[in-house]
């Protein structure tokens, strides 16, 4: 039965909320719980109400504040499959509704008859900072819309509204609301380590070894070679060696040997005489001369040309050098600290690096571990970068990150090491419009890594017989329908749809190896909806893909 507006008419004994009920399915050993779900289709009929209510299964509530009644109608129709919609014609009405009921999303017109939309937005934020607010405006480029985004609005929609983008955006906002309602696992207000003067962050055993090594050699006037992958903090070690040395009151200069062409690098390091080469209009003082008495950091020394290597070796051996194009021998007292991520021993074997230079540099070596080998430090680093980014990017409303994000970032293998972690955190802080950073904001490669890791924890290579079992389970639909007819069920459609849905989800998730993004794309539904279904049907992904309760063929 349908009402005049096309929506299913509610029976007098039917309660207007989600409920749970238990049914027996032919292909399952045990009962499963399903939702009495109006989301499935507006044409579903015969839905049995239940006395059981669960707060966790309620429909999300959306508040629409707009003085245009046609917008109310469009929003109600568009969002009916995913939310219960309340409408208000003015700011005062909207605030009254917010005071009386809990909402998951607010759709707010920028211009209201009784208040400026931005002022209204600020009042809503005061009431609930985690409530996503989506502005609607007929002036998509208006200064007000931009200001609203700067203040932290979830998004804005340009009028005229379209049903599908409206629904998709509200669905996304509902998901964000759910995820950001989790407790903050890490606050964004932790004291930054640099506030205490610490240059390094790390408590893992490997980093403690690094600190000890710095302590042992910093006061010695010996060259040091720092080795480690890109982004592990080699320059930080160099600076720490300098700061703890007796040369700390003299200069510290850094040169990236990979950043300059060979001839320019030589000139940069040793200087040149006027006319030494085309463009040498005047004498230039090089870094070895400039840094006399201090410390010179040669980063990426593995990229240094052999001719320059020879001159550096001479400085190390004799503390002497000449400027490019010059005849005068100059002396310098420089402590050299070098760094590389290249396999110098192999380069020596290949003739690309001087063996004698390697011997000179290799006297003292400090190895920096990659971030994946110091997972215990990831949380410390996250905390530090988070509070720093919050201050620098001026995000006063940022509270922290969710437990899921902490878990995902801790588990990630970080090929770009600490530098990459810092960039990811800063990007998340910049992109986040909610007070809590949730997994959806993380870069794609981190989310994909987390998903693939979930599968790898189990057996991703499903034996063919398990796929056959799924097919067999799907073949039970006719039997189910016959049984329901025999039992004179008044819920045939919903039960059959549920059976079909469970089979389709399981089959597609097996096809994608548990990859939810791919599965959602194949199914033509949002990831949020898929996640909801996985939870509803208790589909387990840790050990391949299956239902928590085994399926009989």
């Amino acid at each position: 039965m349908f009402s005049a507006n096309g929506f299913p008419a509610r029976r007098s004994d039917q309660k207007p909320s989600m409920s749970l009920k238990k049914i027996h399915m032919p292909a399952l050993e045990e009962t499963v719980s399903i939702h009495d779900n109006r989301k499935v289709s507006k044409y579903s009929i015969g839905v049995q109400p239940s006395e059981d209510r669960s707060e966790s299964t309620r429909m999300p509530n959306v508040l629409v504040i707009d003085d245009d009644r046609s917008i109310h109608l469009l929003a109600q129709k568009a969002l009916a499959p995913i939310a219960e919609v309340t409408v208000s014609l003015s700011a005062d009405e909207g605030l009254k509704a917010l005071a009386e009921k809990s909402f998951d999303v607010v759709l707010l017109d920028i211009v209201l008859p009784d208040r400026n939309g931005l002022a209204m937005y600020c009042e809503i934020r005061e009431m609930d900072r985690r409530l996503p607010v989506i502005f609607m405006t007929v002036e998509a480029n208006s200064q007000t819309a931009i200001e609203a985004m700067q203040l932290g609005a979830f998004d804005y929609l340009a009028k005229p509204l379209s049903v599908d983008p409206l629904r998709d955006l509200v669905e996304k906002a509902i998901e964000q609301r759910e995820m950001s309602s989790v407790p903050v696992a890490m606050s964004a207000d932790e004291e930054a380590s640099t506030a205490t003067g610490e240059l390094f962050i790390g408590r893992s055993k490997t980093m403690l070894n690094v600190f000890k090594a710095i302590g042992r050699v910093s006061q010695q006037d010996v060259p040091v070679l720092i080795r480690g992958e890109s982004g592990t903090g080699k320059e930080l070690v160099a600076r720490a060696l300098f700061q703890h040395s007796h040369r700390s009151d003299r200069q510290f200069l850094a040169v990236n040997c990979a950043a300059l062409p060979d001839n320019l690098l030589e000139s940069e390091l040793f200087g040149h005489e006027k006319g030494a080469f085309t463009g040498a209009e005047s004498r230039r003082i090089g870094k070895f001369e400039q840094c006399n008495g201090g410390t010179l950091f040669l980063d990426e020394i593995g990229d240094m040309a052999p001719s320059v290597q020879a001159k550096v070796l001479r400085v190390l051996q004799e503390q002497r050098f000449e400027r490019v194009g010059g005849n005068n021998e100059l002396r310098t007292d420089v402590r050299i600290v070098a760094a590389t991520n290249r396999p110098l021993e192999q380069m020596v074997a290949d003739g690309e690096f001087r063996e004698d230079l390697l011997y000179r540099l290799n006297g003292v070596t400090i190895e920096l571990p990659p971030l994946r080998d110091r997972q215990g430090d990831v949380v410390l680093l996250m905390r530090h970068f988070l509070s720093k980014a919050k201050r620098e990017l001026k995000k006063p409303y940022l509270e922290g990150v969710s437990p899921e994000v902490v878990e995902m970032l801790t588990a990630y293998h970080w090929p770009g090491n600490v530098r990459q972690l810092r960039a990811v955190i800063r990007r998340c802080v910049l992109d986040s419009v909610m007070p809590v950073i949730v997994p959806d904001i993380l870069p794609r490669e981190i989310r994909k890594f987390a998903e693939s890791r979930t599968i790898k924890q189990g057996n991703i290579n499903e034996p063919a017989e398990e796929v056959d079992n799924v097919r067999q389970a799907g073949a039970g639909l006719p039997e189910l329908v016959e049984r329901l007819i025999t039992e004179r069920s008044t819920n045939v459609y919903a039960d059959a749809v549920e059976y079909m849905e469970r089979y389709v989800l399981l089959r597609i998730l097996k096809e994608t190896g548990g990859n939810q993004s791919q599965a959602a794309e194949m199914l033509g539904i949002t990831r949020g909806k898929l996640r909801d279904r996985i939870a509803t049907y208790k589909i387990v992904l840790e050990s391949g893909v299956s239902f928590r309760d085994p399926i009989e063929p």
Partner: protein
Amino acid sequence: MIQRSYPGAEKSLDINAPKRQFSDALGRVAGDSELLAAMAMFVVEDSQEVIDELQTHLQCHEMTQAAASAHKLKGMLSTFETAGPVIDLHELIVAAKENNTEECARIWKRCRIEIESLVVEISSLRQT
């Protein structure tokens, strides 16, 4: 041709002019003609009051209120049409915010008949 005039009108309503198909509007509501018809009903019911408000504010040189009314009218009509009179309303809003009463009057004189024509066409959707 039916003549409909008001003080200062430049054009008259021509019922023989080609009718809009509102195909874009139908696309925005995912092809739901019932929804579009219901929205048309509300817009037709509410728009005349807003048109009259806008007229009054312009005559009284109440530019802030005129901008607000024009904004509301633009929002209502943009569901069905995004060009023509809706663009004129945008220009009127800009002029009102700049307190340019002459420009507002000029634009309103130009576009009011088109707006009313649009509302008439929208009203035809109620019968679909």
